[in-house]
């Protein structure tokens, strides 16, 4: 083996990393084939030759100096980035590993797994007497790792929720953290007075410093659980915001106490100055954050010509905010959070869709790396460093941390409840208290303590103990407990148009009622800010400033995505859609025995399906899940497609009494379909997608016709409306993406026929689907796939006689359009 050569040849360190590499490859290989590939490709070419000729090149240069070396290596030069890369890779492979069997991560938080892997690696390192990498020092942590984590938190914070609960969140984050720090610190100091425990040399400042470190709560595990089971929004945002802002508080306290701990004597003025400084630091942070946030937003106003570097601005400005704040020793975390929150709203409107996606991905990725590494190091460090184990101190730390947290939540809730419109009940409080896990930040802070703290090792040990305890015990048990407790739950916002409309309506009503009462409170200020935002901020900061209602933007989003889905459909046809369908199938089949699908059954199924589909979506949307992006395009797509099909099908049926003359028309229209003559009809209209159709799709036809037979006589008189609805918002939203618009445009008539026959989606997949479906048929595919074989012969066999009509698609359209006018007017009461 190459490794044996290695051991003799190189330093222990190099050897270890080779070993690490091998472990890594094994890991990769174990996971999945495709996972191991990148590792082979990326690592081995560099390393494999290095294995074999390891000794020779070292020896050669001395003897044959004159010759140009054929092969050399310079490990020290690449050592740092190389090792870093390996660490990241190893951690990433570990993550892949966990997710292979995804039930693991449901029951055991990822942080537990990462720590475990870290422990294993640490054990290996320990056995080969390898020093842990000295990567994690104070500077690295504060300048590189922390900002990444914080940026992620700030950027993905659910802003609306946060501002609705801002007071409570800040109350818990700021006062709660202070409470914990001071409480734990003083209690521990009390413990230190007992000689029995042998820790008398820890003075008050050091205790406070340590306490401030371990009061940093890391809510990832709790959030994941909360997210999965849909805990009510209030509890969720409080945990989220608390985790976010108590980082800021903790870092401030940490710096303060580090300073104080260095002083021989602390005078009362120091305490006073410390308090004053606390506020200066926080306010300064917010100020810098706002400044840089607005500058960033303003800059992106002008980046539309340099789309490639758009995302860069987000990162650079937020990092700049962080660094400048750090430079002035004000709360850099605060600055970064504020900056991210401020700019997010404006930036996301300025930058292109792609840049937006990029930003989100990169933010997530960096944060995940950073956090993964910290947890990983935690595991490694736990094994490899010298520990100073003092039972009393550590146990009391655990005890106090827990007690103070519980008391803190209870007391603080009692104080804040009268100010809240919805008081937090006992279960919420329990969730809050129990969700207080300690995590990465806590470890990083304690690990980067200056060396002049004489009991640093004890602190590290105690912190590791509390982290492992909370992460493992609380982290694993929180899910069953919360589920058992049946905490106040919410249905996650299913983004339907109605929801959006009514959310807005509710807000307006509330602010109106407040005005009526002559009270100024939450909604009043919200209203005011919105006005200010629309009038001033948006004008300055956003390039294409048309103040946009969230209803409209949601609607546009749905429309746009349905258009994209439409375009994608022919490609995604075989892969994506069927899998979705089959999923639904299984679900359906689980619930009901197989039998003949009567029309009524099919309808029921459709109902089940539609519910399920919404649920899928609901489950997967997780905007703050730390390890995932909030992007759920897949499930979204289902919704979108469904949305589109619903629209089409229902439009047809939702408007009443057409003049009877319409019926023949619609029949005619629809009878075009089965004949497969659409190609002749649509290409003409679908100018932009010309040629996307294929000549024959008999198989598709069978499935379509069978499903169509279900609802043979849906009327089609409202086509114009569909077209309208489709093209208009999309056109206004995406002026530079002609294809979706166009597709939408076509969708009106094209889609209508489909859905109106096929609107009742039976969950059985079409047995044979044709591969190259037409584009506009493609969208229907999603339906038609679900529209199974609701066994009935087509009631209206394709009357070929209509074919001549196809030559006049224009007329066809106008006819339909005309017909739609009538019922539009008359169909309403």
């Amino acid at each position, binding site marked *: 083996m190459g490794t044996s050569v290695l051991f003799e040849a190189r330093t222990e360190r190099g050897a270890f990393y080779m070993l690490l590499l091998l472990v890594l490859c094994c890991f990769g290989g174990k996971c999945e084939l495709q996972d191991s590939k990148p590792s082979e490709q990326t690592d081995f070419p560099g390393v494999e030759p290095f294995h074999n000729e390891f000794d020779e090149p070292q020896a050669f240069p001395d003897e044959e100096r004159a010759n140009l070396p054929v092969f050399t290596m310079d490990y020290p030069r690449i050592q740092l980035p190389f090792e870093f890369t390996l660490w990241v890779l190893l951690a990433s492979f570990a993550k892949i590993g966990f997710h292979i069997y995804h039930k693991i991560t449901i029951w055991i938080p990822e942080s537990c797994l990462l720590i475990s892997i870290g422990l294993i690696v640490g054990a290996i390192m320990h056995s080969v007497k390898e020093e842990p990498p000295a990567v994690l020092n104070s500077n690295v942590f504060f300048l590189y790792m922390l900002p990444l984590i914080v940026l992620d938190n700030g950027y993905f914070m659910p802003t609306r929720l946060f501002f609705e609960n801002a007071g409570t969140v800040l109350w818990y984050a700021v006062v709660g953290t202070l409470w914990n720090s001071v409480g734990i610190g003083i209690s521990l100091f009390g413990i230190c007075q007992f000689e029995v425990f042998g820790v008398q040399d820890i003075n008050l400042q050091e205790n406070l410093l340590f306490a401030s470190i371990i009061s940093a709560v890391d809510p990832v595990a709790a959030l994941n659980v909360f997210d999965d089971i849909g805990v009510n929004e209030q509890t969720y945002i409080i945990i989220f915001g608390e985790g976010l802002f108590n980082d800021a508080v903790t870092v401030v306290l940490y710096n303060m106490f580090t300073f104080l701990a260095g002083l021989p004597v602390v005078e009362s003025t120091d305490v006073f100055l410390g308090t004053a400084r606390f506020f200066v630091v926080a306010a300064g942070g917010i100020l810098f954050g706002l400044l840089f946030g607005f500058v960033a937003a303003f800059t992106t106003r002008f980046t539309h010509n340099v789309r490639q570097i758009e995302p860069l601005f987000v990162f650079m400005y937020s990092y700049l905010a962080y660094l400048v704040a750090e430079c002035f020793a004000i709360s850099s975390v605060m600055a970064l959070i504020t900056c991210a929150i401020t700019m997010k709203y404006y930036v996301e409107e300025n930058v292109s869709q792609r840049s937006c996606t990029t930003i989100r991905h990169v933010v997530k990725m960096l944060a995940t790396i950073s956090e993964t590494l910290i947890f990983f190091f935690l595991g490694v460090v736990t094994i490899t460093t010298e520990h100073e184990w003092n039972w009393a101190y550590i146990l009391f730390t655990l005890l106090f941390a827990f007690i103070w947290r519980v008391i803190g939540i209870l007391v603080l809730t009692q104080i804040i409840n009268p100010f809240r419109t919805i008081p937090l009940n006992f279960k919420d409080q329990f969730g809050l208290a129990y969700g207080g896990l300690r995590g990465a930040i806590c470890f990083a802070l304690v690990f980067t303590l200056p060396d002049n703290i004489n009991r640093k090792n004890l602190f590290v040990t105690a912190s590791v103990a509390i982290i492992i305890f909370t992460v493992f015990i609380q982290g694993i048990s929180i899910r069953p407990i919360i589920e058992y407790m049946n905490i106040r739950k919410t249905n996650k916002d299913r983004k339907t*148009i*109605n929801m959006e409309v*009514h959310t807005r309506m*509710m807000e*307006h*009503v509330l602010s109106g009622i407040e005005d009526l009462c002559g009270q100024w409170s939450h909604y009043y200020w919200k209203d005011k800010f919105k006005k200010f935002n629309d009038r001033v901020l948006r004008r300055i900061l956003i390039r294409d400033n048309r103040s946009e209602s969230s209803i409209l933007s949601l609607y546009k989003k749905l429309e746009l995505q349905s258009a994209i889905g439409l375009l994608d459909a022919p490609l995604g046809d075989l892969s994506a859609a069927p899998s979705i369908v089959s999923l639904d199938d299984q679900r359906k089949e689980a619930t009901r025995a197989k039998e003949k699908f009567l029309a009524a059954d099919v309808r029921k199924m459709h109902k089940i399906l539609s519910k399920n589909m919404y649920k899928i979506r609901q489950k997967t949307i997780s905007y703050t899940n730390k390890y995932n992006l909030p992007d759920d395009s897949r499930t979204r797509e289902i919704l979108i497609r469904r949305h589109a099909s*619903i629209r089409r099908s229902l439009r047809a049926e*939702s*408007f009443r009494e057409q003049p009877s003359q319409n019926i023949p028309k619609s029949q005619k229209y629809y009878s075009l379909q089965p004949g497969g003559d659409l190609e002749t009809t649509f290409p003409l209209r679908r100018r932009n997608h010309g040629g996307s159709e294929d000549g024959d799709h008999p198989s598709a036809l069978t499935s379509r016709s069978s499903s169509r037979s279900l609802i043979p006589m849906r009327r089609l008189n409202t086509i114009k409306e569909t077209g309208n609805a489709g093209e*208009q918002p999309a056109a206004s939203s995406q002026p530079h993406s002609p294809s979706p618009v166009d597709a939408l445009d076509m969708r009106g008539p094209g889609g209508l026929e489909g859905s109106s026959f096929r609107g009742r989606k039976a969950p059985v997949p079409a047995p044979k689907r044709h591969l190259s479906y037409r584009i506009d048929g493609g969208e229907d595919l999603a339906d038609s796939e679900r529209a199974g074989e609701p066994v009935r012969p087509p009631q209206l066999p394709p009357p070929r006689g209509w074919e001549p009509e196809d030559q006049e698609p224009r007329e066809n359209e106008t006819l339909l359009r005309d017909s739609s006018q009538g019922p539009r007017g008359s169909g309403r009461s």
Partner: protein
Amino acid sequence: MGASQTRPEHKYQDLADKTGFSLEQIKNLSKRFQQLSGNEETISRDNLESIPALANNPIRNEIIGAFFDKRNQHQDAVGSCQEIGFEQFLMVMSHFRPPTLKTTVEEKEAMRKEKLRFLFNMHDTDNDGTITLAEYRKVVEELLSKSDAITKETAEAIADAAMLEVASINVPHMGPDDFYEGITFEHFEEILKGLEMETRMHIRFLDVDTAKMGCGKSTS
């Protein structure tokens, strides 16, 4: 705020029992009521329409209308009245009382239903038990009326899409000749199932008299 206007305590107590407000809240609201009505016994539409803060509210008409809607006043009557007294005013306001820790699940459910009914009534202007497309469109249009970028057609399209959504959620097995008449209350409940009504749709009525700035001005 003359002493003559202050009603006797027991009168408030009745109202408190009826509406669930505390006495302080009722006092506050009555001050506001006096201010709005110009010390009259009743409030008319004009009184409410002249509130400057409301001027920018896109659905001002609906909100004001809701106050004069008899359905919202816990009476069995329908239709709208021209003037409302303090009691009716309170009744309408009481839809926005926040739940307390003591409210039971059933009560919460009832409150939710009430709130939903309130919203529903805002839509259902002709009081036929359904929200028709026209009614829905009107509300959506008004909601969107404050932003310039949105044309009437867009608003209509959105309302249509929303309507379709309702229909699809509620009547998935619609016959070919069926027509979705409009949103009934049951359907309305169904589509807004996911909305956190009970925790959102309420405002805090102040217990202490902090609304002095307004009251002082008009009465002094």
